[in-house]
């Protein structure tokens, strides 16, 4: 076999597993200003986010969903980053940021998992229909 088994650990780094098993900001907000959910029908991943916004700042945020470690850890990481951010700054977050934050080498087949939470943000907060069309 050409790839040693230890390569897996590089891919599924500990903090990803940690975010997957102990998701931050998991749950729902009672009265969100924005609430949006997206799914990836091909693999069944679901991510939804509730935002509480005041004066253009994301004051609180929760996510819910189910799916693979990549999609759920990526959502957890994104909520951590978004909390306290202005919507204007949040708008600037792009694919590379999200993938960079995951810090792993994502194969084409899994990239949609990694970007599902970003899609929720973009569509939910800015009404962008298609991530590819930004």
């Amino acid at each position, binding site marked *: 076999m050409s790839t040693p088994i230890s390569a897996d650990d590089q*891919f599924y780094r500990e903090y990803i597993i940690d975010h997957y*098993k102990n998701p931050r900001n998991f749950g729902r907000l009672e009265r969100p200003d924005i609430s949006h959910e997206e799914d990836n029908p091909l*693999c*069944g991943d679901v991510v939804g986010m509730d935002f509480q916004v005041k004066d253009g700042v994301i004051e609180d945020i929760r996510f819910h969903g189910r*799916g*693979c*470690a*990549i999609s759920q850890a990526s959502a957890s990481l994104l909520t951590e980053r978004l909390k306290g951010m202005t919507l204007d700054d949040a708008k600037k977050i792009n694919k590379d940021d999200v993938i960079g934050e995951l810090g792993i080498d994502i194969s084409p087949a899994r990239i949609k998992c990694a970007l599902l939470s970003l899609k929720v943000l973009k569509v939910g907060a800015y009404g962008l229909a298609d991530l590819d069309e930004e």
Partner: protein
Amino acid sequence: MSTLTYDVTAVRRDFPIFETGIAYLDSANTSQRPKQVTGAMLEYFEKFNSNIHRAAYRIAEEATVRYEATREKVRAFINAASTKEIIYTRGTTEAINLVAYAWGRKNIKKDDLIVLTILDHHSNIVPWQILAAEKGAHIEYVDIDDKGELRQEQFAALLKRGPRLVAFNLVSNALGTINPAREMVAAAKKAGATVLVDGAQSTPHQPVDVRALGCDFYAFSGHKMLGPTGAGILYGRRELLEAMDPFMSGGDMIKTVRIEGTTYHELPWKFEAGTQAIAEVIGLGAAVDYLNGLGMDAVRAHELDITEYAYEVLSEIDGLTLYGPPPSRRAGVISFAIDGIHPHDLATIADRDQVCLRAGHHCAMPLMTRLGVPATARASFYVYTQKEEVDRLAASIKEAQRIFA
């Protein structure tokens, strides 16, 4: 030929891809192809590459003879009555769509009932949904029991309602369930239905006899049975095919074309419009030869052997749930789940060990909904699968459990 004499090592030598070191456990998705198949295609490309049926020179005759020879090979392989009943398509999906368009639009009427099953592949669901919506017909789905086997009493009840069409797969690609197709076809025919059997997962893996089966249509894909992509088969009973209008039209499927109108060619060519996948059909013929060389009973026995072994090995893993019936009533397909690990993560980790494992809904979303899971992991086997590959899968699962511990 008994499993004892089945020489999987010799078989594997015909498949150059295994030199890459992969453990290929996704044959229900698409099979690998032996060099006999690619060789037959290359021979066409390099020795008698030309179009068929149209030309008066020798290489075109050679191409035509080889292309038509596949029809006879396929006829014998599934024991059809005549080569007129063997229609080339791109695969199972096109075969079923051909029936939905060319038979369905003419024969399905408002308020007609179509019976499918919850085990069916999207390719045997969506064409009927579209047809039903167009015609105002209804669809009912036969459910499964806890073992993943069709609830025959429910099927019998549906038959009482006099369905116009019954369509189901002989083997489920998602659970591996082998349906009691002969009994089901007989009951459906008795109830007056036209019956289509989706043979995508049965034809590659066990002996098939469409006349014994008694169905009206039978569809399958070459690429799942060692053949190349791009070539598959629709078998149809001659009376039905004769009565159908063409599906696609254009070159070759006509007798005469005049401004005033057109007359169609006879069977099977009536359904083969335009330049066909010639090299691929020739490759499919080589695949049938290859399978005949192994013997379909031996193929089934080998797969059963591997499946029993895999079932045992996987059963021993903690936190692993197996879906579907016991090995003796299933084909070489095992769907499963691991507690706390999403199938996609498992597949990605397995891939790092060069273990090719499928994760997803297996084009059977209604079944996934029924099982209450978004996806499963699936290992599937074929003529070249060896136990060592199952062991590699088990090792990958354990590695995933370590990472996610």
